[in-house]
C-alpha cells in the first residue's frame, strides 16, 4: 500500500483562482472537499462573484496522486449505483486489469462540478476521472507484444460526452 497522504491537500488548502480584493491583499477561496474511497480531495471555485448569473464551477487545480485505492471499484459501485464487474467475471486479459486495480497508484486527473445559476433548470453536472499506470503492461493478445494495456481509467460522469471521432 502506498501512503500518499503527503501529496494530499489538507482541508481548505488554497488552490485556484479566487475573488480578490481591489488592492490585491486578500482573496476568498470557496472549496468543496470530498472523500474518494476514503481519501480527501478538495476542489475549488474559479468565480464566485458571478455565481448568481453563471453558477459556480468547482474543479481540481491539477492532477492529484491518491496512492492505492483498495476498494475503488466497490466504492464507485456503491456511491454511484453502478455495476463495474469484478475481475472474476471478465474474460482475459480484462480480468487481469481489474484485478491489479487494487494494487496500483491512482491519480485524479479530472474532477469538476458545475452548479447551475439561478433560474436554470439544469441539474448539477459532475465528472470524476481517475487514471493509473500499470507497473507491468498486460499483453492484450496472448503471446504477442504488439498490443499492451499500460494503464486504466475509472470514472463517473453525468455530463454528455462528445461522440468519439470516427476514422475517415
Amino acid at each position, binding site marked *: 500500500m502506498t501512503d500518499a497522504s503527503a501529496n494530499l491537500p489538507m*482541508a*481548505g488548502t*488554497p488552490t485556484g483562482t*479566487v*475573488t*480578490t*480584493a*481591489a488592492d*490585491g*491583499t*486578500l*482573496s*476568498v*477561496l*470557496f*472549496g*468543496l*472537499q*470530498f472523500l474518494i474511497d476514503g481519501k480527501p480531495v*478538495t476542489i475549488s471555485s474559479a468565480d*464566485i*462573484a458571478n*455565481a*448568481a448569473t453563471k*453558477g*459556480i464551477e468547482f474543479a481540481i487545480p491539477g492532477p492529484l496522486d491518491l496512492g492505492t485505492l483498495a476498494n475503488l471499484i466497490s466504492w464507485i459501485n456503491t*456511491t*454511484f*449505483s453502478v455495476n463495474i464487474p469484478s475481475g472474476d467475471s471478465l474474460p482475459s486479459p480484462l480480468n487481469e486489469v481489474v484485478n491489479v486495480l487494487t494494487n496500483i497508484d491512482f491519480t485524479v486527473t479530472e474532477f469538476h*462540478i458545475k*452548479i*447551475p*445559476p*439561478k*433560474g436554470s433548470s439544469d441539474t*448539477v453536472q*459532475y465528472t470524476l476521472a481517475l487514471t493509473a499506470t500499470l507497473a507491468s503492461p498486460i499483453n492484450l493478445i496472448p503471446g504477442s507484444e504488439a498490443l499492451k494495456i499500460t494503464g486504466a481509467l475509472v470514472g463517473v460522469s453525468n455530463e454528455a460526452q462528445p461522440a468519439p471521432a470516427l476514422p475517415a
Partner: protein
Amino acid sequence: MADDPILDARTVTELCTAINQTYALNLPVQFDAGTVLAALWALAVTVTKDPRPGTRYEATATGGYPVVPALPGTLTVDVLDTSAGPQS
C-alpha cells in the same frame, strides 16, 4: 460573541456578508430559494481566525452537503492574505 463579525458568522450567508462589510468585497449573499446555491449558502459553518500562515480566516461547514447525489462534500471558505505574494 467575538468582537469580530467574521468569527461570529454561523452560516455561509452571514460569513459572506461579514467579509463584504469588513473588506469591501462583493461576494454573493443570497440565492433563489430551492436552488443548490441557496442550500450551500444556508449551511452552518464554524470559523477560525489565523488557522495557518497566510490564511486570515477558515470556515468549514459543520456537515456535508450532497452537491453530487450520494457524494456529500464539505464546503470550505478561506480568506487568504495575499499581500506577501502567492501562498504555497
